[in-house]
């Protein structure tokens, strides 16, 4: 069994290595290799799923020093199975999509190599059985994400975005690493199974501080407040990358981490996550409402959905969060790929106000996209309905403020997703590119159809194999037994009906300006400025604390320019200049150094003697 898992990991790795070493110039072979690898990984993963055996950890010792040991091993429980399936399945279809999308890209080989590296590292996170191994793959995922965002490295935007993503993720990772070290110190193990027992045995060792450190990684990777700023920018990468990494899988890895280590977190941490998650579900919805770039809308939508998931984990329903993670992966990948298809059809036009009327020219894309929109809005009997309804119910039971935020979030979701669909596919074509758009080939359409199928049917639990649905089915039944069932379902239905209806009224007949700008200018400005996030921040924090802020700024410069941000000549650079200034080759200066050093040492010897 662990051989099978190892094979799943190794197949993408081999593909990446082969591409790196042999097929850098031969882009077509590289692409075929990568797609083939992801197909093989998917088949193997399906094998692994249906062999419903609890894995016995065949662990390989990786690093040993005294009684400190790190090892590689696999832990394949229900959550891991589910995510394994989602990652390989969605990954495979996105690989196929990329074949068409990246057909004429000069960096095609590099792109597919990067995808393979990403698949390897993401799967590593899924199956890792201890925090150290997880962290290694976590970093690898960050690295491959950096590479893929920077795919169009000749544009300033992509370079800046990749840098931003890396820096912010690193900031989070430092906290995460400290948390891991602290865990090792407290529990003397990093293995999930042992940690769980240890946490049960000694609950007094779990503190809020440890929890806050550990969730730093989650906050950065899942783009939660206040480290959310990198995700919208990351849309500078190619669309399949946005679909795979920044919507369906990598950002979900943060949620997965929460689920894996939830026994290490205490109530305070969970309350904070719930609050942040609910707020993010709401905040990102407002932001998404006014974006003009189709990918940015989807990016904010992702932020909002991640908020749902994290809040759900925090109120104790991690199974439901995993369920939504899976359904979200299907429909969000579908939406991104649909957007990709549109962008490709419109010759890389991404402004929704320069599209329109594509329904007739791109029927496949239009229909599948519509299904995606319905799913994410939670229209009854689509996959999104089941998972979102369950989350609403859970929130209703456990945490009323979060429920309210969820509900408004759901309304907003329907509103901005409807807006997106009407603006792209209905009305008149508002630009030349849109008038000339046409459907692309089979490699583009097939993934759309496959994902649309799951986006619609993925909510029917009875269709899921037992090995996967076991993760959430109990919690699902539990929430459905609750008293608020009817009420919540009604509210949910109201939310999507209102949202879609509102968006139809507002946007279906738009010409080339956002109608919201005219009808509710204040609201529009508010949303456009991301709720004056930056201004409020500036007013409340920066101005009164300018002097303090300067210090922090300096510190930030120190650390961020240390973390490979080029061009920020901060304090470190100054110090560096000063340091190298004394190494200007003067032998006598050096000799003086020497003697001063000697005197310091001797003085120390003398002083010691005096004490």
């Amino acid at each position, binding site marked *: 069994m662990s051989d099978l898992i190892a094979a799943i990991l190794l197949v993408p790795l081999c593909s990446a290595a082969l591409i790196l070493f042999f097929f850098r110039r031969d882009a077509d072979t590289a692409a075929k290799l990568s797609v083939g690898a992801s197909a093989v990984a998917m088949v193997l993963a399906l094998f692994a799923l249906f062999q419903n055996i609890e894995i016995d950890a065949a662990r390989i010792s*990786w690093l040993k020093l005294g009684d400190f040991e790190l090892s590689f091993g696999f832990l394949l429980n229900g959550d891991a199975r589910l995510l394994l399936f989602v990652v390989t399945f969605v990954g495979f279809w996105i690989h196929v999509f990329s074949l068409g999308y990246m057909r004429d890209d000069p960096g095609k080989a590099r792109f597919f190599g990067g995808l393979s590296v990403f698949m390897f590292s993401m799967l590593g996170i899924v199956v890792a059985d201890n925090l150290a191994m997880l962290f290694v793959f976590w970093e690898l995922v960050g690295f491959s994400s950096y590479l893929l965002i920077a795919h169009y490295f000749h544009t300033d935007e992509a370079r800046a975005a990749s840098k931003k993503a890396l820096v912010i993720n690193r900031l989070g990772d430092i906290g995460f690493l400290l948390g891991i070290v602290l865990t090792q110190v407290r529990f003397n193990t990093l293995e999930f199974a042992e940690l769980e027992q240890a946490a049960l045995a000694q609950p007094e060792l779990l503190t809020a501080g440890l929890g806050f450190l550990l969730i730093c990684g989650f906050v950065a990777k899942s783009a939660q407040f206040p480290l959310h700023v990198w995700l919208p920018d990351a849309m500078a990468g190619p669309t399949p990358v946005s679909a795979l990494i920044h919507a369906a899988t990598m950002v979900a890895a943060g949620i997965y981490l929460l689920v894996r280590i939830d026994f290490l977190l205490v109530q305070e941490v969970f309350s904070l996550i719930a609050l942040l998650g609910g707020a993010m579900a709401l905040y990102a919805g407002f932001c998404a409402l006014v974006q003009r770039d189709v990918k940015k809308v989807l990016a904010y939508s992702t932020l909002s959905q991640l908020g749902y998931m994290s809040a759900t984990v925090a109120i104790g329903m991690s199974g439901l969060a995993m369920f939504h993670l899976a359904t979200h992966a299907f429909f969000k990948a579908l939406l991104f790929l649909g957007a990709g298809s549109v962008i490709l059809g419109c010759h890389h036009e991404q402004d929704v106000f320069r599209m329109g009327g594509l329904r007739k020219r791109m029927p496949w894309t239009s229909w599948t996209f519509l299904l995606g929109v319905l799913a994410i809005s939670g229209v009854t009997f689509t996959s999104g309905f089941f998972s979102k309804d369950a989350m609403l119910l859970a929130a209703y039971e456990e945490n009323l403020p979060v429920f309210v935020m969820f509900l408004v979030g759901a309304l907003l979701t329907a509103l901005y997703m409807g807006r997106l669909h009407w603006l792209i596919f209905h009305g008149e074509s508002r630009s030349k590119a849109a008038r000339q758009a046409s459907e692309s080939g089979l490699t583009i359409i097939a993934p759309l159809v496959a994902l649309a199928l799951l986006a619609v049917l993925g909510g029917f639990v009875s269709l899921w194999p037992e090995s996967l649905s076991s993760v959430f089915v109990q919690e699902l039944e539990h929430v459905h037994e609750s008293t608020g069932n009817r009420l919540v379902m009604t509210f949910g239905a109201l939310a999507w009906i209102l949202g879609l209806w509102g968006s139809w009224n507002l946007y279906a007949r738009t010409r080339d300006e956002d109608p919201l700008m005219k009808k509710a200018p204040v609201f529009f400005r508010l949303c456009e400025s991301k709720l004056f996030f930056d201004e409020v921040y500036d007013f409340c924090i920066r101005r009164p604390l300018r002097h303090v802020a300067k210090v922090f700024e300096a510190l930030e410069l120190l650390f961020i320019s240390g973390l490979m941000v080029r061009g920020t000549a901060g304090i470190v650079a100054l110090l*560096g200049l000063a340091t190298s200034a004394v*190494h200007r080759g003067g032998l006598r200066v050096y000799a003086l150094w*020497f003697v001063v*050093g000697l005197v310091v040492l001797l003085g120390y010897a003398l002083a010691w003697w005096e004490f």
Partner: protein
Amino acid sequence: MNDFKLYAEANDWGLLVPEISLAFGALLLLCREALRKQGRESGGGLAFLLQGGLLVYFVARYLFFDPRPDSAGESAFNGMIQQSFPADVMRCFFLGCAFLTSLFANPGLRERRLPQAEFHALVSLAAASMMLLVQSNHFLMLFVSLETVAVCFYVLVSYHRGSPYSLEAGLKYLVFGALSSAILLFGIALLYGTAASWSGGTAPSDPLSFTMLEQFVAANSDSLAVRAGTAFVLAGLAFKLGAAPFQAWVPDVYQGAPTAVTAYLAVASKSAGFVVLFNLVTGPLFGLREFLIPLLSLVAIITILFGNLGALTQTNVKRLMGFSGVAHAGYLLVGIIAAIGMHPDVPEKSVFWAIVFYLLSYSLASYGVFGVMGVLAPTEDADQPRSLYSSLAQKQPFLAFTLAVGLGSLAGIPPLAGFIGKLLLFVVAFQAELYGLLAVMVMGVVIAIYYYFAWIRETVFPPLPSLDSSDKEPQVLWSPQFPSLLLACILGLLTLTTILLGFYQSSLGQSF
């Protein structure tokens, strides 16, 4: 005279077969050079053969004949020499370094028409004396072998005698080397003098021997003379390590020396210094641990900060490697401090393993990087701006990959050997509860990522056409050559080992 007879009988030359064969190999090279016909240049084949052969001998000895992982070591030559498993590992290490240095230097020597036989002889002799240095258990032996190493390096550093850079580097190295050896000798004299004229107990019969000094120092740890002597000895050694504030020579000498020699200096000479320091602080000076820990901590902190900050603004990659070498010395010093500050129940061996592994990963990565630098070096070896490497990945993907892996390992990027090395040091520092030093180390590593990555980016990503206002096309001044097949194989091997050691090393450490 009976005692002298006993002395003579204790000289068991069989224990030093590798060193003796290296020395005779060097003699053979010199003789052959003296007798050769005019106009026929002799290559380094003999030297490679000898060094490679000895390496195989060592490995075979431990694989098949004499696996003695847990031996306490044996003393020979009247206490001059103490053999042990860790010392043997280091002997192997120096042989490997010598082999790589000879190999990497050969093309440059041939191109500059410099005598090759002498170079290889000097490299072999330096290796032999470093091998003796790490085994020495007596201050006289230590001094003599240390000076032999130093004299070899004075010549090697200034070997490109056509270049004023190389000669200047040699001169600087010599002046500071001589200064530090005078200081070291003064320290030895102080320790010797106090031990020999100690009236408190029975004066040790051989006051220069580490074993005897250990007892003396432990009993007299509050004597000022002992402390002053220790401070002098440490200052002398700190020069070898390139530890602050005795680091000033490092960037200049690293820049001016021929690239292969720079690698030898950075890796072998520094490692020898660390092993000697380790032997001293865990042996004769162990009684002074209360005194040593704050002192060495201070030195380590300054060294880490200085090395990393200095490297930050360097554009000449050889100077950059010099500064970063200083930083690595700082990390290793933390390991040394951990060795003396350790909890009594944590074995000293695991600290030594951490240090050795760090040295190993550092040497693999450094030789990879210096090897590539040697291949790409322009006519003037000392003049290597970073822009020389711009878009190397497009021209020579193999070299760029080797370089990137080497730099990544030096920076401590996770799956590579350098990361494990740093991790091991972190772990021992953690076990020794050196939290402040740990924080400084982390800071240093963070800064280091910046300058290593600036170089990697220069190598891997093509320059932006129009980010700056000047719209000039980057001029391609030179097209890098592919190295010879042997060199390429060795570079590939180094890279591969760097990657593999990141995944598999846990059982290697068991022997320690």
